[in-house]
């Protein structure tokens, strides 16, 4: 059935409306970052733009150190999560047992616990292992944190792959590793890529663990943002400038990879 022009226009309006609504906070943040401090606290679109906040943010903190930490930790956490999740999801999708479903649900249930509930035990473990304020510690935490989501996503993608293809591979003598590497991964690449991208974005935006487990050495951009809030003194413009700088890399990255992301996320949606 062809949509009528009216339906098409309506869909466009609704689509744009939702998009603008979602983008509004980010746009407002960018706008605020160009205001002066007193202007920033009062809503208004008329102001003379200034770069003062950016200048001050750069003078106050070493943006690059934080940014590099963010990149290393996010990429590291994602790679580590994928390394564990790909075999796990493979096993669950192609060699299910009667406990697979329960295991999957149990993995997901760990996401339902508020992180602060395990803060002290994790902190003690990190202390004993000497992992406090280290990138490797955060990489491990991020990988663990995203593992349930990554396994679930990969599992649904793998479910789409007909078992016959893998069987054919086995007939040709492929072993498990080869099966995964030469057959499964190429077939589900968009899915794996979008899972990786999502995990990367989740790692980038994670604030609770990064604030609590780092101090000066391994602090990523979330800590950089947090350092610009002040109980006594105006800070919205500087905070907005810092936030803009913190989200800029992932925003650009997301822009370039959105085709992959959308493709992957809708991969298994229509059956």
């Amino acid at each position, binding site marked *: 059935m062809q949509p009528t022009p009216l339906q098409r226009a309506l869909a466009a309006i609704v689509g744009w409306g939702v998009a603008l609504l979602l983008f509004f906070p980010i746009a407002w943040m960018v706008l605020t970052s160009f205001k002066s401090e*007193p202007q920033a*606290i009062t809503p208004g679109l008329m102001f003379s733009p200034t770069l003062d906040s950016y200048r001050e943010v750069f003078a106050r903190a070493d943006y690059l150190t934080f940014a590099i930490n963010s990149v290393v930790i996010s990429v590291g956490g994602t790679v580590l999560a994928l390394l564990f999740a790909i075999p796990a999801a493979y096993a669950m999708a192609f060699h299910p047992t009667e406990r697979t479903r329960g295991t999957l649900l149990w993995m997901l249930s760990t996401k339902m616990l508020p992180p602060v509930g395990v803060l002290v035990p994790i902190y003690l473990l990190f202390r004993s292992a000497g992992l406090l304020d280290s990138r490797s510690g955060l990489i491990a935490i991020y990988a663990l944190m995203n593992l349930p989501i990554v396994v679930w996503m990969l599992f649904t993608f793998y479910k789409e792959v007909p078992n016959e293809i893998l069987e054919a591979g086995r007939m040709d003598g492929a072993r498990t590793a080869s099966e995964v590497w030469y057959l499964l991964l190429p077939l589900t690449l968009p899915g794996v890529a979008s899972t990786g991208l999502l995990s990367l974005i989740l790692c980038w935006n994670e604030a609770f663990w990064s*604030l609590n487990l780092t101090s000066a*050495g391994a*602090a990523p951009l979330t800590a950089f943002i947090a350092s610009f809030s002040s109980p006594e*003194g*105006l800070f919205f413009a500087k905070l907005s400038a810092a936030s803009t700088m913190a989200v800029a890399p992932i925003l650009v990255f997301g822009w370039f990879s959105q085709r992959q992301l959308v493709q992957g996320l809708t991969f298994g949606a229509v059956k």
Partner: protein
Amino acid sequence: MNGGRNCDRAGALTTPRDTDSVCKNSLQQSGTILARGRCVIAHRIRGVLKATVSVAVLLLTGAVVARADSTITIATVNNGDMVVMQHLSSEFEKLHPDIHLRWVVLEENVLRQRVTTDIATKAGQFDVVTVGNYEVPIWAKQGWLEAMNNLPASYGVDDILKPVRQGLTYDGKLYGLPFYGESAMTYYRTDLFDKAGLKMPDAPTYEQIRGLADKITDKTHEIYGMCLRGKPGWGENMAYVTSLVNAEGGQWFDEKWKPTIDTPPWHKAIGFYDDILKADGPPGATSNGFNENLALFASGHCGMWIDATVAGGLLYDKKQSTVADKIGFAPMPTGSFKGAPTWLWSWNLAIPTTSKQKDAARTFVTWATSKEYIELVAKQNGWVSVPPGTRQSTYDNPEYQKAAPFASFVHKAIEVANPDGQTAQPRPYTGAQFVAIPEFQGIGTQVGQTIAGTLTGQSSVDQALRAAQSATERVMRQSGYPRE
């Protein structure tokens, strides 16, 4: 099904080239497929092991390097005076080339949570922490902070303002050194007062303030006679409310730790607060904390504002304030009970007992809170920017008095803040605009939300105070009070 069994047929398809070439030899030598399969597996395992070991070594060296660092880590908040300290720390590093500083700047509540976790688990991530005078005695009692004994005579402990010093003393010992201190005072707009033909009394009472606020309010021009904190939180609206309640002869607990919120002094105080903010306050007062009111006053929307003395310096800053040359100062208004505890807050530097570099930390803390540091700030940024509220010598300095016309008000306000003094009825706790018990953060914030509800019209003052009373009673019972 085991794919490995068919290694020979799958060889071309499945094995990477290097394994292939190495293991081809084994096939040629022994001639069996099984041997080749073994070889492939062994080679793979070796590869994986090698990678794991090298990653582990990398991680370990990273950890070792971090630990061998001879630097001290300072946790602080992002207030103007701390920003200056961070900026001037290069001078400290010049004086002490063997001590390097690392800064962790966090939001106030995050800092509290972060530092508490770290000290409670004895992890020792921080060597210097920025804490309020609310925490110092509580943490000292827990054994979390190093006592600041044996300070050199040149440091001049006696030069520290007495009320501030007392707030940091537990069991006769100092547990933190004040970086800056504040009380509260009344700010008003001299131009608006002149226009209306009004005069601010030298020692205003709350009744007088109410009359003045009504006359100045001009809502059509967005001028609000009175700005006050309305944002819920133990350190936001409840700081002001506690001080107001004290002034009207109320208090949080009686001598047996029974909450006394649903009592006439509270009704009078909250009634006043509710009335004046509804009649003369800015719209949406419940979202206004210190910063929001600062912005409102600085942009010319408030006729009066009662808040922390630290705002004086900020309002005088022409870069931030459009009313820099039109500000008048008065003490905090008084209510029916004279001499009540008013307001005293200090941001202090303390050393956690878990610090591994206590000597270096002590060197830094004594430097950052010294007379020399204050002079350094004066030299670099001018006298108006020096951290206020800590030392008698600052207030005795004629240059400071000249540069900061509000100095004498601040000094006086701190001197009469009386945080350890008595309320109308005897009380079992200390603190001026807070109650110095660990439970107060939770209680204060909860009651703060209830009181904010009266401003939004969710509940009446009577309802709010009744609810606050029973909620506080419950928390206190659960926390095991009365203890004595």
